[in-house]
């Protein structure tokens, strides 16, 4: 599923039905129903019911659906997992992951629930939010802690707080963390998700931030407001050259298949599985941006 588009993910707080319903209609690729930060302590139960019923009965079509559960050490986590797994989102987004062990423990819990509920084991994937220096330092282990982990995302606000750093618009304080997470994701072959740009009233600042997102090589970015979605999607629109390269990779694979050659070679290099997946993702991004690619499938 690596060519699934994950350019944008939008949070919808599990407290507001109107926002949850409207969130299904924006252009984000991934929609994250939140049980964590946007929900006050006294409303955790209400949000759990709302998110569970929303995903179960009014799941928006054509979107990758996530549920962000409460913290690993919170009292809410177990019940969150009971509800979230049974709602069957594409993935559970786990906040503030610091060690691979934590992911393994949650994996065991999720597996137990899947078995009890008669659901396919391993169906629900994980996105791990890395929100502290400890998380950044363990990123590589976290990325491979469970086959369920399909993406990691940087939580910049909490990360800078853990570092006693200042959160600035140019973002040099998170430069290392971005790269560390990206490298861990690349090594594990999973999706790398950039931190949010939190000033929703600064579209120019967002544009600048996106230049960094794109230059570093992220696959997607979390949005805090629907108004950011189109700009973020736009940042992941591949260039004509990237599209052409992707098409050449797939053409080469097609030809190799036609000729029954075991290995596929392009420009002197071997075309491997990750290359193929990247090519497909590039074309999917182009298609999502309205660029007619056609021809190769």
């Amino acid at each position: 599923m690596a060519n699934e588009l994950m350019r944008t993910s939008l949070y919808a707080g599990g407290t507001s039905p109107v926002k949850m319903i409207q969130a299904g209609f924006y252009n984000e690729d991934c929609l994250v129903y939140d049980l964590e930060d946007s929900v006050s302590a006294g409303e955790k139960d209400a949000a759990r019911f709302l998110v569970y019923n929303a995903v179960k009965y009014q799941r928006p079509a054509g979107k990758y659906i996530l549920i962000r559960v409460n913290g690993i050490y919170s009292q809410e986590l177990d019940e969150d997992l009971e509800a979230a797994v049974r709602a069957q989102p594409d993935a559970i987004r786990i906040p503030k992951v610091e060690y691979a062990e934590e992911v393994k423990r949650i994996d065991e819990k999720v597996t137990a629930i899947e078995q009890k509920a008669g659901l396919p084991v391993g169906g629900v994937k994980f996105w791990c939010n890395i929100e502290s220096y400890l998380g950044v330092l363990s990123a590589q282990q976290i990325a491979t802690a469970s086959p369920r982990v399909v993406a990691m995302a940087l939580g910049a606000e909490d990360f800078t707080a853990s570092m006693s750093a200042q959160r600035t618009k140019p973002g040099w304080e998170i430069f290392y963390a971005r790269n560390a997470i990206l490298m861990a994701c690349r090594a594990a072959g999973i999706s790398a998700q950039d931190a949010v740009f939190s000033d929703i009233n600064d579209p120019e600042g967002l544009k600048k931030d996106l230049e960094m997102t794109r230059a570093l090589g992220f696959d997607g970015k979390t949005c805090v407001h629907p108004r950011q979605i189109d700009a973020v999607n736009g940042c992941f629109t591949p260039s004509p050259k990237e599209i052409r390269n992707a098409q050449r990779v797939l053409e080469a694979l097609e030809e190799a298949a036609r000729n029954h050659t075991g290995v596929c070679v392009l420009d002197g290099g071997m075309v491997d599985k990750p290359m193929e997946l990247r090519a497909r993702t590039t074309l999917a991004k182009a298609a999502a941006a309205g660029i007619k690619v056609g021809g190769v499938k």
Partner: protein
Amino acid sequence: MELKKPAMAGTTESSDVMITLRPNPEGGIVIDLKSDVKALFGDAIEKTILEVLKEFQVENALVNVVDKGALDFVIRARMQCAVCRAAEIQFDWGKEDAHGK
């Protein structure tokens, strides 16, 4: 299941519903429904409320509903929450698991 105390769930924001449950000393279920869309969906709203009460086997309750155009899943969620709060129970997420197999 008996309701132990009055409890509320939901808000009066647009697209939400505020449900207040109270024990009914007289016995039975009494629904007081105020809704922006009563003419269109009044029956559907009552049906969902009764369904959720039945799921929990609640037989005696005063149900006060202030609906601001909530979709069915919202009404269901708010009702489930209100029942758990009023009956002081934890929801059994696994109760439908058997049907899934």
